[in-house]
C-alpha cells in the first residue's frame, strides 16, 4: 500500500525548479488555506495528542485489564464502544492503540524513507552498474507481492513491534528510491551541480548538500502519504495474527479478536476499523494538501 502511495506521488509529482525557505513558507500558507490540509493536520494533531497523552492521563496496563464479569457488553455510557471478550473497554484499548499505530507509521516512514532516499541518491547520481544493480533490486522488491513479503519476514523473525516495523519498512523502500532517483536524474545535469563538480566538491557533498535539498518536496509528500499506508499495512499483519504480541491493544489484532463475534457484537470489529480509517484519512488528507501546496500548478 505504501507502493501505491509511491505510485500516486510518482504520477502527480512534478519537479519544482529550485526551492528555498520562502517557497516552503508559501507552501505552508497554501496548505493551511486548503481544506484537506487543514482537516488532515487537525486529525493528525488529534491522534498525536491522544497517542501521547493517553499513557499520562490514564496509566494503562493491558495485561491486567480484564474482567470476565463484564465481557462483551454492548456500547453504553460507561463503555461507549462496548467491552471485548475479556471485559476490556474497547474505547480505552483503541485510545491506547493509537500510540502503537502512530509509532509504527512514523518509524516505518522514517526507516524506509531514509534507506530509499539514500539508495535513490546513489543510484541516480552514480549511474552505470551501481544504478542498474540498485534499481533491479528495487524492481525485485516491487515485483514480490508486498503482503507475502511482509508475512514471510515476520515468519522468519517472529512477531513483535520491531519485526512488524522491519517488515513494513522493507516493503516501502522501492517507492522512495524510485522517486528520488528520478529527481536526481533531472537535477544531475543542472548548471549548479556542474559548477560544484568543477570546483572540486566531493560526490557525497553534491548529493547531500545540493541534490537532496532540491528533491525534498516529493520525498515529503511521499512520506506523509506513506504514514497512512504503513498504518494500514501493519494493521493487516496484526489482523492476520502476525503483528504485535497480545495483550497489546493493536488495532488490526483487535479486529481479528472481534471477528468471532461479528454477528453478536459488530462493535468489536467496527470501532477499531474506524480508528484505523480516521487516522489514515488524516494522513492522506494532509499528504494530499501538501502535494497541492508544494506544487501549485497541479491544483485545478
Amino acid at each position, binding site marked *: 500500500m505504501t507502493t501505491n502511495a509511491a505510485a500516486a506521488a510518482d504520477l502527480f509529482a512534478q519537479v519544482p525548479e529550485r526551492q528555498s525557505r520562502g517557497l516552503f513558507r508559501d507552501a505552508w500558507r497554501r496548505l493551511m488555506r486548503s481544506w484537506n490540509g487543514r482537516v488532515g493536520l487537525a486529525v493528525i494533531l488529534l491522534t498525536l495528542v491522544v497517542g501521547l497523552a493517553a499513557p499520562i492521563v490514564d496509566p494503562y*496496563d493491558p*495485561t*491486567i*485489564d*480484564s474482567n*470476565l*464479569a463484564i*465481557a462483551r457488553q454492548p456500547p453504553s455510557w460507561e463503555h461507549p464502544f462496548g467491552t471485548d*471478550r*475479556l471485559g476490556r473497554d474497547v474505547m480505552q484499548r483503541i485510545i491506547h492503540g493509537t500510540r502503537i499505530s502512530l509509532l509504527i507509521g512514523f518509524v516505518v516512514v522514517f526507516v524506509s524513507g531514509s534507506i530509499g532516499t539514500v539508495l535513490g541518491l546513489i543510484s541516480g547520481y552514480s549511474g552505470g552498474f551501481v544504478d542498474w544493480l540498485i534499481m533491479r533490486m528495487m524492481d525485485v522488491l516491487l515485483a514480490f507481492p508486498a503482503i507475502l513479503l511482509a508475512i514471510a519476514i515476520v*515468519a522468519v523473525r*517472529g512477531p513483535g513491534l520491531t519485526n512488524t516495523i522491519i517488515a513494513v519498512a522493507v516493503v516501502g523502500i522501492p517507492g522512495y528510491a524510485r522517486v528520488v532517483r528520478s529527481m536526481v536524474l533531472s537535477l544531475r545535469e543542472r548548471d549548479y551541480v556542474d559548477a560544484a563538480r568543477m570546483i572540486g566538491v566531493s560526490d557525497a557533498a553534491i548529493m547531500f548538500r545540493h541534490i537532496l535539498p532540491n528533491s525534498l518536496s516529493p520525498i515529503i509528500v511521499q512520506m506523509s502519504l506513506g504514514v497512512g499506508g504503513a498504518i494500514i499495512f501493519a494493521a493487516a499483519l496484526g489482523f492476520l*495474527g502476525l503483528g504485535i*504480541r*497480545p*495483550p497489546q491493544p493493536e488495532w488490526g489484532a483487535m479486529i481479528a*479478536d472481534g*471477528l*468471532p*463475534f*461479528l*454477528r*453478536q457484537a459488530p462493535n468489536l470489529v467496527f470501532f477499531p476499523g474506524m480508528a484505523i480509517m480516521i487516522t489514515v484519512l488524516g494522513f492522506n488528507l494532509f499528504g494530499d494538501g501538501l502535494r497541492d501546496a508544494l506544487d501549485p500548478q497541479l491544483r485545478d
Partner: protein
Amino acid sequence: MHKRNWMLVLVLVVALVLGACAPAAPAPAPAAPPAADSGPVMDGTLIVGRGGDSVWLDSGPATDGESAMVINEIIEPLIRLEGTSARPIPWLAESWETEDSQTWVFKLRQGVTFHDGTPFNAEAVRFNIDRWRNPDNEYRFGRTFEYYNYQFGNAPIEEVNVIDDYTIEIKLAKPSSVFLAKLSLGFSFGMNSPTAIMEQGDAYGTPAGSAVGTGPFKFVEWIPGDRITVERNEDWWGPKPYLSRIIWRVIPDNSARFAELQAGTIHQAYLAQTDLPMAQADPNIEVYVLPSLSTGYIAFQQCTEPFDKLEVRKAIAHAVNWAALIPAFYGEFGQLAGSFQPPAIPGHNPNIKPYEYDPDLARELLAQAGLPDGFETDFWYIPVIRGYFPDSKAIAEAIAADLARVGIRVNLMTEDWGAYLADRNEGKFPMWMLGWGSDNGDPDNYIGYHFMHQPGQPKKEDCYDNPELAELLIQGAIEVDPAERERIYMRAEEIVKEDVARIPVVWASTPTVFRKEVKGYTPVVFRSWYEYIWIDNR
C-alpha cells in the same frame, strides 16, 4: 489426539463407562434408525460446512478430525463400536475369537467388494495391516502411520496369517484387552483397496488421486481447500443409504459458515463455540450435545527454574480464577475440570476437586519458593481453535491477567501449529497450554498417554518424573481386570494432582449441529452414521 481431531474423538470411540451406565443398552443406532413421523426420504445431498480441509483420505496416515470424518464414510474397519456404548460390533469382520487376548482370529464378511470392484478378503486385510506395521512397506510412500505407532507401540502386531479367503489370524506381541477398541478407529485402521493403492502410488488418498474402500459412500472428487464430494455406494453390503451425496465444504470464516447454515445452503456445520448460543436459539437449527471426552490443560517444563519447584506450580494453580473461564469461554459446553480425566473415562477420580482461586495463597507459595516478587516467563498458547480451548488467545490473556495480579508476568507466545507441537515435544516451552481428546475411551489413551514414562527417564516435553506414577501407568496398560485397572488410574489421578504435574482446566464437550430438516441422526459418540440420515424438505 492433539491434531485437530478432538471433534472426531467424540464421534469415535469412548465410553466404556457410557456402556457401563446403560447395561441394558437399547439396540445400537445402526441396527434401528429412529422412527420418524413421515418416514425416510430417498436421495438428497447433505452439505457439511467445516473450517479446514482434510489432510489425507488414506486410512492409516490420517490423524486429524477433518480427514477422519470423510474417511469414515468411504473406508471401513473390521470392527466398529456401537453408538450408544463402547461395545464392539461386527463390521467388515463378522465374528472373532481369542483365548488369551494375544492371538485373535477374525471371520470376514463375505461378498464385500471395494468401490473399484476388487474383492475384500483376507489378503486385503493382510495388505493393509502390513502397511501399518512395517516401516519398510513399499506402499507407505513416506507417510507416517502415527496412529499405529502410538496405539500399538507397546504391543505391536507380530504376525498376520491368512487362514483362508475369509479367515485371518492376528498375533500381538503382548495380550491386550483393548485391541478391538483400537481396531475400531476407522480413519487409521480401515481397509483401503490394495489394488487402488498399488495403482495410484503416492497419489492415493490425496487430491491428486482418490480413496477406495468398502463403505456406504464412494469418493467422487476432492478440490483442495474447497470441497470433497462422495456419492452413495449402490452396492454397499449394508442397507441402502438414504443420501445420494455428501459434500464437505471448507468455509474458514466462522461467521460465513454460520450464515450459510442459517440460510440453509449447508445442512451441518462445525461451529465456533461463540456461535452456539445463537444456533440454539434458531428454530431451524438443532444442536445435539455429546458427553465430554476432552481436557484442556496447562503444563510446565519441570526441570528448569522456576517450575522445578512444586510451590511455583501450586501458586499458578491457585492464582488463576479457572472457574470464571468456564461461563466466559465455554458456556454450557464446558465443565471446570477437577481430575485430569473427564468423568466418562474409567479411572476418573471424582474425589479430586478443582483448585481453589486464592491469590493470597498463591503469593504465599511464591514467597515460600523464594520468589516473593514473582517472576517472568514465556507462556505459549495454541494457534488453533480446539473445543478444549475455543478461543486460546483470549483464554491465555485472561490467565496472564490473573497471573500478573500475583506478580507472575508471562509473555504470551505462539507459532505455527506444526512448529508448536514440534517445539513442545522438544521441551522448549517453560509453560504451555494444550489439550487432549480420547481416541477410544480408555485411560491408557488418556492419563496414560500424557504421563507414561520409564522411572528416571522423564519425557522431554515436561521433564516430569515420578517413579510411583510411572509404575502405575505401565501396570495399567497390561492389567486385564477392570476393577483393578480403575483403582490404578484413580491413584494415578491423585499423584498428578499432588505433584501439580499439569493443571487440568476444562472438560469440554462437543456439540453436533444440524439443520432441522436433517433427520435420522442419533447423538452418539462414535460417528455420525450418515447412512441413516436423510433430508426432509416436506
